[in-house]
């Protein structure tokens, strides 16, 4: 059956932003994940402030920098998930010591 709509009808029906404009306007997304955290600012203060952080188990600058970045993303880091992750690392370390691995 031939299309009997007017030109104006068809223009109004397809009057949507161009595909590239839709993509440009959307927040950064990838496969349904929100990647806006990539734009988060890092934690406050110099790296040296994080040398004595409870999570800085080797008191190193590298660890201090990572903790500062994590603070910017996650806040004060008193999160359950942090406890679980660090606890797992500690557990692994203790196990190796118990097994005599240096």
């Amino acid at each position, binding site marked *: 059956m*031939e299309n009997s709509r007017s*030109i104006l009808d068809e*223009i109004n029906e397809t009057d949507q932003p161009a595909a590239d404009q839709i993509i440009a306007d959307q927040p950064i997304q990838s496969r349904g994940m929100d990647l806006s955290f990539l734009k988060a600012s890092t934690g406050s203060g110099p790296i040296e402030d994080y040398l004595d952080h409870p999570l800085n188990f080797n008191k190193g600058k590298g660890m201090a920098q990572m903790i500062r970045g994590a603070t910017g993303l996650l806040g004060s880091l008193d999160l359950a998930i942090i406890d679980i992750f660090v606890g797992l690392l500690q557990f692994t370390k203790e196990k190796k010591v118990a097994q005599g691995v240096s």
Partner: protein
Amino acid sequence: MLVNLGSGHNTVIGITRSGKTYAIKKTLAGVKEGVIFFNTQHEEMPNTFINCTAADNIESIKRAIRSGAKINYIPDLDSKIREKELIFIINALYQRSNISKIYLVVDEVHLYEKDALKKLIQVSTTGLRFGIYGIWISQRPANVDNTLMTQSEQFIIFRTNMESGYFDRYGIPADQIKDLLEKGGKYAYCIYDFINITGPFKV
């Protein structure tokens, strides 16, 4: 004598009342191919042209053009809507199943920008393969997109204000044309195909 439209796109330039639109209208009224005249300024057209607007159906227009009809398409006066209509029509011309030669005329082509201009550039660079022969009419050639100008097979030049800057840009011998047009008198025109100038002529 009707204007020789050559075998490619044309750019027609001339000031208001130089006779450029009249010459093209009269020439196209006599061709055997279908014509769609995108009538930006709502000019009066010969009786042989069929008036159409956005209230019409595009398939009917395409059928008519296929059989050699001359369509006077009268777009909306709102420039944004007008541009959408132009884009829609050009897309429809590309989607014809029968790629017979047709003329797409756009009056005051310098008024079209952004997406509409991109569509015109598409016609100027690929339209011939799809049977779309563009005729770009303008009284402001300095504002016509460079691609539209350079992809034209020829310029049909009526009386202009002779801004030598843009004539030089395209290698158009301004002084020679000026002399020929003066010799030809009112409504005279010349044709420049990037190699030779012919004229003056009159319709």
